[in-house]
């Protein structure tokens, strides 16, 4: 058994290692080392906890068994999960952190003396508030993440669920949690504690159901942030430095990612939270379609010809590419082009994919070197000098209407200047509008060639024609 001061010191060390783990992610070269430091930090925290309790009875064996069961499940999932399913996985993991926070708070409430928080019926006031915050935020994270998981997985429809009085109900429930915590502090009644948790579960569900599929990157980042605040709340309850540092890190990390995602979609954070995007705008542009020029329709042969005679090609991948699993075929196509000395680069919009950085991971999986992959602000000027833009599975992020039409729902959203290219190839299944529900005028331009097909099949056909 080691003293509380020694263990506090070691918790501080694991907190520092967690900071370094995130710091490592500033470049792919240092990232693996960072991940390792994170694992070391976690190991230290767990071992120090065992040593500081100093209880080596049979209970410890059970702890290890449960640890291994959970760990085995986690490892199994980590190795089996396809990279396209990362958003669901992260949402699922968030829900587990949230639920774990709820459980720890319940355990602390039921047995406060083992955490040095007082005795049942007379828990220290500050601890009671802290554990209520931890439990409540944890519960919101849990149920919210479950809904996000179901939506991403496609089990639940991605369209927003809206009913009248929704925001009023949320406000009422939110306020009632505060009032109940106040009474919990006065009466120490366990019934109130359970009610707080139940209402928080409900709030989590109500908070996420009105948010549409297109806003999922924001939702995941937001839930990431919540899971951090829940951990911090528990950290205060347990007076544990590692948990407080981690909670603050994760909380701010998620908040920054939400901000980046909102900015990339030109949406205010509150309009995302209030929801409803993606359902209301579908009808707006449908009449214009009739007076549009017909689109130019091409096939794999035309595409291969265009690219063969280009000197530089920019590829714009979107989630459609991932759904069609076309990233490997795409990489093959790029290899062929590079062999005949054509400069190829990839342009990635911040919201390409279903979560921050998702497209980068998918390209990395297909062995695309990360120094050929560029973020929007780094590559946007290059489109004017490029010969061919190959848009595969992306749509809204290339729509010039975001720059020209103030009435468009995506006006002001930063987009890739694909139209500046000499010619544009669009691999798409049909002319249907994207997530935002708006028509893309790029389809009707003279220098645009539409390739109507499944992204994977079309790419494979182009590869054949390049030979």
């Amino acid at each position, binding site marked *: 058994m080691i003293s509380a001061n020694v263990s506090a010191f070691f918790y501080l060390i694991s907190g520092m290692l967690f900071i370094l783990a995130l710091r490592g992610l*500033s470049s*792919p070269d240092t990232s693996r080392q960072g991940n390792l430091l994170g694992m070391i930090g976690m190991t230290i925290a767990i071992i120090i906890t065992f040593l500081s309790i100093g209880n080596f009875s049979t*209970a410890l064996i059970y702890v290890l068994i449960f640890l291994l069961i959970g760990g085995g499940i986690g490892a199994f999932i980590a*190795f089996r999960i396809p990279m396209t399913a990362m958003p669901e996985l992260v949402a699922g993991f968030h829900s*587990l952190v949230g639920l774990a926070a709820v459980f720890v708070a319940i355990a602390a409430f039921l047995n406060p003396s083992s955490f040095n928080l007082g005795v049942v019926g007379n828990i220290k006031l500050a601890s009671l508030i802290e554990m209520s915050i931890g439990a409540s935020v944890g519960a919101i994270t849990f149920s919210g993440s479950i809904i996000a998981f179901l939506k991403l997985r496609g089990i639940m429809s991605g369209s927003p669920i809206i009913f009248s009085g929704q925001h009023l109900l949320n406000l009422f429930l939110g306020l009632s949690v505060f009032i109940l915590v106040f009474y919990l502090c006065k009466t120490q009644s366990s019934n109130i504690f359970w009610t707080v948790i139940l209402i928080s579960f409900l709030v989590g569900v109500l908070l996420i159901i009105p948010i549409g599929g297109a806003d999922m990157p924001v939702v995941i980042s937001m839930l990431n942030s919540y899971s951090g605040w829940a951990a911090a709340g528990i950290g205060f309850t347990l007076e544990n430095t590692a948990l407080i540092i981690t909670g603050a890190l994760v909380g701010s990390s998620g908040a920054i990612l939400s901000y980046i995602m909102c900015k990339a979609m030109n949406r205010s954070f509150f309009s995302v939270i209030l929801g409803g995007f993606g359902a209301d705008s579908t009808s707006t542009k449908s009449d214009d379609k009739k007076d549009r020029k017909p689109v130019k329709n091409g096939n794999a042969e035309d595409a291969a010809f265009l690219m063969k005679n280009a000197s530089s090609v920019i590829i714009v991948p979107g989630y459609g590419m991932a759904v069609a699993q076309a990233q490997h075929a795409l990489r093959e196509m790029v290899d062929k082009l590079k062999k005949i000395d054509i400069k190829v680069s990839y342009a990635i919009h911040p919201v390409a994919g279903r979560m921050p950085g998702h497209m980068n991971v998918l390209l990395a999986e297909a062995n695309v070197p990360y120094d050929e992959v560029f973020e929007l602000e780094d590559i946007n000027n290059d489109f004017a000098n490029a010969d061919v833009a190959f848009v595969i599975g992306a749509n809204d992020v290339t729509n010039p209407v975001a720059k020209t039409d103030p009435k468009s729902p995506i006006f002001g959203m930063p987009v890739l200047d694909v139209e500046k290219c000499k010619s544009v190839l669009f691999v798409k299944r049909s002319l249907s509008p994207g997530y935002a529900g708006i028509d893309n005028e790029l389809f009707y331009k003279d220098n645009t060639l539409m390739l109507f097909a499944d992204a994977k099949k079309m790419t494979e056909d182009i590869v054949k024609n390049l030979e």
Partner: protein
Amino acid sequence: MEIDPFIFRLSIFILSIFVGYYVVWSVTPSLHTPLMSVTNAISSVIIVGAIIAALADTSQTIFNSSSLFGFLAITLAAVNIFGGFLVTHRMLQMYKKKKKDKK
């Protein structure tokens, strides 16, 4: 007058938010997905609370109402720790492979 230890913890918390703010802004956008999975893994350090709960008061029975929640939380957090770190590792390995290919 003595300062309440809570104030010290609050100081750590606030300063960590600042550290987090600057560290996360320096993360390259192409690694944002690994960032999410690794933050997920480290937030499972909540397992220390679960272990305390599970090992407390085991003089009579190993499983009482409080420790049962502890054991459940251990399992959930362990899924996250192993799953989170390993899936991050798997993703970061992919960023490495390509570098070798290039050289």
